[in-house]
């Protein structure tokens, strides 16, 4: 690990200012992904701004009837919150499907959104990776790609967003609240938070340099039956090959989003109207334009079947 200086500011705008003014600085919250990457020298910050002293760790009702989840609420606490379990069960389920108990105790709401891809070529510093080292190429395109993106990728990158939580938040139309070094805040809809790789795969999100996430707001509850279905190589503690977050209403209408298939949580609202017609109608539309590799084309069928299983689970 490269050496770094360290500070622990006491207000969000101070933290944002510290990252904005210091070259090569990064925020650290739970640190479970950042420290892993620092040990491998994939991330090499010269300065860490520890945000754990900022509060931002409560879940409060909003005037609109939703919930405002502080950036530093731990994954365990968000999943276990009685209001989330009752009204946003898809979010509880997604969180509990991810990582291990130890990691969920440390991982934060904001940090989970910002976790980097687990593409094996991003992790292997001996390989070309445009996300890790812009312009170096992409070893994944002709490499071992069974875990990687089938849609929304580019000639530069076929990495996936690895998280589960973000898929549920995208489904729920959550908003990401931020503050910058000048103290001004904004809301970013989850649909616009993660970006597609295009020719700049090193940029995962639409956050600006030094912009700090302060909260995620959930709109008022959708009702219906909430399902998070995750298919992976082992029964627990593994990344999704494909996951489905769904909220389904008694009349068969609803929403569906997919994880493990793209650089961002994949949700196509125009396809959701076909939910009453069954899974295939939805995935045919949601994955139109997919460009799988020969190793991960199975994910298209798996997405359809996982959605089908989610629909059955909701009806049961």
């Amino acid at each position, binding site marked *: 690990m490269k050496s*770094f200086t*360290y500070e622990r500011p006491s207000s969000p705008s101070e933290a944002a200012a510290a990252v904005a003014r210091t070259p090569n600085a990064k925020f650290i919250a739970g*640190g*479970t992904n950042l*420290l892993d990457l620092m040990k491998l020298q994939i991330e090499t910050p010269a300065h*860490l701004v*520890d945000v754990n002293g900022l509060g931002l760790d409560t879940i409060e009702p909003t005037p609109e009837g939703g919930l405002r989840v502080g950036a530093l609420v731990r994954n365990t606490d968000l999943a276990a919150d009685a209001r989330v379990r009752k009204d946003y*069960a898809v979010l509880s389920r997604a969180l509990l499907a991810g990582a*291990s108990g130890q990691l969920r105790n440390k991982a934060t709401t904001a940090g989970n959104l910002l976790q980097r891809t687990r593409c094996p070529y991003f992790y292997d510093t001996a390989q070309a990776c445009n996300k890790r080292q812009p312009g170096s190429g992409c070893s994944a395109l002709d490499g071992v790609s069974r875990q990687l993106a089938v849609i929304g990728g580019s000639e530069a990158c076929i990495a996936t967003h690895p998280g589960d939580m973000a898929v549920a938040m995208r489904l729920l139309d959550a908003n990401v609240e931020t503050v910058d070094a000048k103290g001004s805040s904004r809301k970013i809809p989850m649909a616009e938070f993660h970006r597609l790789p295009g020719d700049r795969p090193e940029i995962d999100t639409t956050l600006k340099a030094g912009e700090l996430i302060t909260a995620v707001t959930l709109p008022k509850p959708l009702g219906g039956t909430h399902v998070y279905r995750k298919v992976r190589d082992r029964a*627990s503690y593994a990344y999704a090959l494909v996951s489905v977050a769904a909220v389904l209403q008694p009349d068969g209408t609803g929403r569906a989003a997919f994880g493990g298939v793209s650089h961002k949580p994949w949700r196509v609202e125009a396809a959701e109207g076909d939910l009453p017609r069954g899974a295939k109608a939805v995935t045919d539309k949601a994955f139109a334009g997919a460009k799988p590799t020969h190793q991960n084309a199975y994910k298209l069928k798996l997405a359809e079947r996982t959605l089908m299983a989610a629909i059955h689970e909701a009806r049961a």
Partner: protein
Amino acid sequence: MVGASATAALAAVPSAAGAAPVSIDKPVLTKVSLTVNGQRRDLELDTRTSLLDAAREHLHLTGSKKGCDHGQCGACTMIVEGRRINSCLTLAVMHQGAEITTIEGIGQPENLHPMQAAFIKHDGYQCGYCTPGQICSGVAVLAEIKAGIPSHVTADLNATLQVTEAEIRERMSGNICRCGAYSNIVEAMTEVAGRPV
């Protein structure tokens, strides 16, 4: 001749390597106080020091083990502020003033924690390398179930939780045992939870 050219080649190395010297990382030292197993410990550490390395290398509490050092195996599990975490994936400097319990604080040879006694009784280990992490995790898992924190296998998110085999297996998935003592670990935890083994 051979000797002369070899010397010339050696002499040429510094300029051929370019002007940039190999930069040596200068450590940044920071003071941190931790309460470890009920005892206040004041340390001056390189900011890079993980909580695991602070315990093992600086406090000589070598019960917590370094397995993968990447949060994948759970051998380093400690209980920090009442929660189990991977001590390899957190910096000591981030835990100023924190209450930390390592395996040495869970119990001692003459004063075993019930979970330690149950691991012995049920043969919950072979080589023992993962055991401190398994026991810290096992103690915390039963507390998590008692506190009503659900898991991936909890059928009804709003019902009272039970200590079932499926719950234990799911919640312990962050602790790897390459000897394969899993079924005996489940038995040990089941007994400590007060359920029939």
